[in-house]
């Protein structure tokens, strides 16, 4: 069966209530905005979203905010919940204050490593990041190599929505510049990875030396062209 989908709507059609969804990107860069719009249209409820930044407020107006606003989100796992100026209350913080959305704050590198571990078959790991802070609350602490570390568990998802610059029809992916960020590790960490791609080329059109995400990690591809 071909991995290439005609539309984002078809590609997200089986994301149902209660699904855990990773969303690639860092601010607007590498964010699969067309897949997010299609997911909002589809409208599943009680989603758990894993995403680097969930504060909104960046230059690109289409991010996971649109799902929170639509009342589709039960929980967000993120490192960035409040935007730049600490005085501003984000949509996510408002939803958390109202008890609508649960937020799990994770240090950025720990978030990346938990996702990487999820895709790599690692169950958990010890890290020095967050020791002695709220990030360590309720977690096992032990001394490893003379340094206090906390136990962090791998993250996996049902779906990953990611964005790539170039793909072939098998799902080999190439990212461009700082739009790579969380996309390659999220591609590995879920059962069904859906890639929104700017350019689709024939199989063999990407030099194997250049492939950043091998096609085994990618289930669906939607060519959307260049969308800012």
């Amino acid at each position, binding site marked *: 069966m071909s991995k290439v989908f005609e539309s984002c709507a078809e590609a997200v059609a089986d994301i149902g209530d209660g699904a855990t969804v990773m969303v690639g990107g*860092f*601010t*607007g*860069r*590498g964010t699969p905005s067309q897949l997010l719009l299609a997911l909002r249209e589809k409208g599943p409820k009680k989603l758990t979203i894993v995403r*680097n930044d969930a*504060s909104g407020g*960046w*230059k690109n107006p289409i991010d996971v905010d649109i799902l929170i606003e639509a009342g589709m989100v039960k929980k967000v796992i993120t*490192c*960035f*919940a*409040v*935007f*730049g100026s*600490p005085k501003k209350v*984000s949509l*996510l*913080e408002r939803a*958390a*204050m109202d008890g609508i959305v649960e*937020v799990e*704050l*994770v*240090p*950025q*590198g*720990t*978030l*990346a*490593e938990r*996702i*990487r571990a999820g895709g790599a078959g690692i169950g958990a790991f010890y*890290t*020095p*990041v*967050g*020791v*002695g*802070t*709220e*990030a360590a609350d309720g977690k096992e602490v032990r001394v490893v190599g003379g340094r206090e570390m906390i136990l962090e568990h791998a993250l996996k998802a049902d779906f990953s929505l990611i964005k790539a*610059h170039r793909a072939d029809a098998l799902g080999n992916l190439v*990212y*461009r*510049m*700082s*739009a*790579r*960020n*969380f*996309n*390659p*590790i999220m591609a590995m960490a879920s059962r069904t990875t859906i890639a929104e791609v700017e350019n689709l080329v024939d199989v063999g059109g990407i030099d194997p030396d250049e492939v*950043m995400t091998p096609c085994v990690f990618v289930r669906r591809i939607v060519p959307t062209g260049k969308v*800012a």
Partner: protein
Amino acid sequence: MIMGEMMSDEIMARRVALELSGDCFVNLGIGMPMLVSNHMGQGKQVMFQAENGILGVGPRAEPGMEDKDLGNAGDEHVTVSAGASFMDSATSFDMIRGGHLDATVLGAFQVSEKGDLANWKLPGRKLGSYGGAMDLAAGARKVVVMMKHVTNDSRPRIVRECSYPLTAKQCVSVIVTDIAVIKVVAEGLELCETAPGWTPAQIQELTEPQLIVRNVSAWPLSVS
């Protein structure tokens, strides 16, 4: 008491830049620390890391020259320097957590006498943003804090114990404020430099813990 003038953000950035002499790989936090990149002297071989996945961040992109895929962690359009590389977020934080960065410059709400750092959440708020600050504070070999010496309502930000939620314990090496340079040493906080127009006594007045005063010098002229 009559006080001197607070130094501008640009002057602070110039003083922070001196603190990085000899460092090769440096991450600049979002906000004020990003100004530091404008003040690295010619010939200094510093490579700036942006935690969203760039090693070798260059100056900001000129208007009309922005690339939609090229930005720093603060969502600013930037350029890259010769020899730069891009990486995914896991590799970026391998660099940070793995101790491969010589220094990071971070903003702060509070720094304690022991070098504890608080910079991610205001008291009483439901949420905050860790961003990469906890990782940088735990992983960079030197943590330079760049912040105003007092809050908007003139309360000290350098305190005995942080009342704000912590980012990391005992991680700060040096604090550059708009009136002083203070190092974290084994016995506590040592006042090393005063900005023009400031005396050690005046700086002590705006600082909660007792400062160690041994060899205090004026900021280098090249800075102010």
